[in-house]
């Protein structure tokens, strides 16, 4: 039973990152982030005016645990670009500071408009 849930959720995750170029798995929503780390990534994405989809992991325990298993990464938030796991809050923030994030996004054909 539990095993089945994990399989279902990983299918959901796959669909989500396949149908959206940029996906942020986070706690809360972009307007009301429920955790400082999630808020920090939202800030980076808004600074760059990036269109993204967000998934609130607090909506379901399956998703909250499922995404950690799926990415083999112990924390949330998690940023995906074109089905590739980019990193959590620390990595995204660091890549933003060094300009690497803009480079990566542009190289993947994502529109970046730093404000």
């Amino acid at each position, binding site marked *: 039973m539990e095993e089945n849930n994990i399989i279902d959720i990983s299918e959901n995750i796959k669909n989500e990152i396949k149908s959206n170029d940029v996906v942020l798995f986070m706690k809360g929503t972009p307007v009301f982030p429920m955790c400082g780390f999630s808020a920090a990534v939202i800030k980076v994405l808004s600074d760059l005016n990036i269109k993204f989809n967000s998934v609130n992991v607090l909506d379901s325990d399956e998703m909250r645990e499922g995404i950690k298993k799926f990415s083999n990464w112990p*924390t949330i938030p998690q940023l995906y670009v074109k089905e590739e796991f980019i990193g959590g809050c620390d990595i995204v923030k660091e890549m933003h500071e060094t300009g690497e994030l803009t480079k990566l996004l542009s190289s993947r054909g994502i529109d970046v408009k730093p404000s």
Partner: protein
Amino acid sequence: MPLSKEDLEKYIKNSIPDSIITIEDLRGDGDHYSATVISKSFEGKTKVQQHKMVYDSLEGKMGNELHALMLKTKTE
């Protein structure tokens, strides 16, 4: 149960022996740390792989006993 700064350092050091570790207890509650880990063994690895090495050293504590660890990894 929170994890002490000394234990946190011990776990990372055990797993990445050449690492130079600086840890700050951000709120003094043993649950919110900021750590910088410098190791030659990070060379040639992506940031995700580098952070993963540190998380792995904590043997599943990250995201469980340890709520918040702001992490910076460097090769020198």
